[in-house]
């Protein structure tokens, strides 16, 4: 495991490449991490589209995931982490980190840059309630038909309590069978 210092000593071509190819003024910082060949780019939320486009042009072609962290007590923000890796350059990984306010979680969509982002954005919408501006299809997808509460992965929301009260009649051990109304008949789609 190489350290930050040890890693920064040698000339790191991929780090240089990322620095060179990102649009100037649109990112805050590019740092190597203590993991070899993994880099972090700190940006402001408004710059997500140009930065991702530049990364894609620089060869970071495989989009991996979007992660959201709810820094509820520590700072009222959601931190978003976009993982992109490069098959072309032989496997380096870039994590683009940005933060958006917790009371108005909105960010531009990147679904047209990376196709998988479309589904990852839906997932983050349903689990964290983050709205992706320009995404046409934000809906409950994994939680469809199973969930009526607020976004479940937020820190201020006690999922266990809510589930027990809503679905299990407040009981933890014996579960009453609750029959749900059959859904209204659907027309042909």
């Amino acid at each position, binding site marked *: 495991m190489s350290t930050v210092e040890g890693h920064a000593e040698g000339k790191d071509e991929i780090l240089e490449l990322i620095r060179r190819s990102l649009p100037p003024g649109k990112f805050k910082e590019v740092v190597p991490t203590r993991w070899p060949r993994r880099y972090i780019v700190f940006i402001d939320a408004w710059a997500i589209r140009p930065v991702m486009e530049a990364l894609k042009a620089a060869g970071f072609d495989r989009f991996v995931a979007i992660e959201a*962290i709810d820094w509820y007590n520590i700072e009222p923000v959601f931190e978003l982490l976009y993982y992109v890796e490069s098959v072309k350059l032989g496997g380096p990984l870039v994590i683009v980190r940005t933060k958006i306010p917790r009371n108005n979680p909105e960010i531009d969509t990147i679904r047209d840059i990376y196709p*998988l982002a479309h589904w990852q954005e839906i997932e983050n919408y349903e689990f964290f309630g983050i709205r992706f501006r320009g995404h046409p299809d934000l809906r409950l997808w994994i939680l469809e038909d199973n969930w009526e509460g607020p976004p479940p*992965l937020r820190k201020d929301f006690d999922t266990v309590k809510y589930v027990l009260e809503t679905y299990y009649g407040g009981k933890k051990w014996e579960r009453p069978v609750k029959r749900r109304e059959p859904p209204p008949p659907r027309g042909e789609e």
Partner: protein
Amino acid sequence: MAEGKPRMIFLGPQHPGAPGNVAFKVWLKGEKVVKAELVPGFLHRGFEKMMENRWWEVDVVLSPRYCVEDPDNFELAYVLAVEDLFGVEAPEKARIVRTIVAEMSRIQSHLFWLMHMGGATGARYIPAWAMAAREEILRWYDYVTGHRIYHHYMTPGGIRWNVPKDFKEVTLKTLNRVMPMVKDIEDAFVNNRILRARTEGIGVIKGYVAVQLNATGPTLRAAGIKYDVRKVDPYEAYGDVDFEIPTGTEGDAHDRIVVRIREIYQSKHIIEQLVERVKPDDLNYRVKMPLLPPPTLPWPAVARHGEGMSRVEAARGEAMVHVVGIKDRKPYRVKLITPSMPLLTTVMDYIIEHEDVTIADLPIIVMSLDPCPPDIDR
């Protein structure tokens, strides 16, 4: 019916051609599939939230449970991430044994998938041999780790129990019983003319387009891209073993079968190299973990403290785990990044858009991608 509006039907979640707990809304025009939309969520259990409510070392029990077929690679991913966060390095013996266990998991996952593939193509009895071969591996697991499916054998800091005295002999014996069966399956099933006619030229994703679709794992390799996390970012004992990355040329369903079969042979090769280095008498296989993770600096000085990350090549592709720890007995956030989502969304959409997929081909295409739907839901 051929003209007019496409008709929507459900495929799954209990259809034999559906790969487990997932459904598709399929729009049909005649028997041609116009569009298929994934309906996940049948097995959503909220792992990420559950893990936030349990202790670091207890979460190992949860970490493999979102993929039945290939549990150990995901367990390894979680364990590595926690070790990374705590700054603990497992002893060498533990690293070797964990690699062997993970490779066995890859073999049994591919064997299990062969059975599914046989189900989708209508070959019923030959892939039952794959289940027999898998049974041998499950018995090996029972002997080594104590359980058959979910092993909980790894723990942050090493492995939980020592390996049995005759570990090497048992492992080699198991492989010697599994490999002839794999060979038989290869002869009777993979090179079978009927199967070739059924799978060749179907579900083609060839070349760089696989990367653009963000595909991963054997699907990516069958498309001809030599990319494997075990090589590009070696973890555990993969850095010092010798193995190859099998790749395909055509990128069709048959290529994906062939690539997986060749991966089984590579896994066997890896295990054979590593098993020589396991010394059952060596008791240095577990280091004690501190109770609390090292202190975290408040945001935004992140990424240097309080976070751990791992990247492994599971049987279905690249899996990552990212853990965030503030000074607490429980994780602050665990993110499980799993390989199946692109396979059933972007890749499927691409295939249906670019090929004449009929409803009879759809199960074959879905199965040849080998998704593990619970890891989409988590």
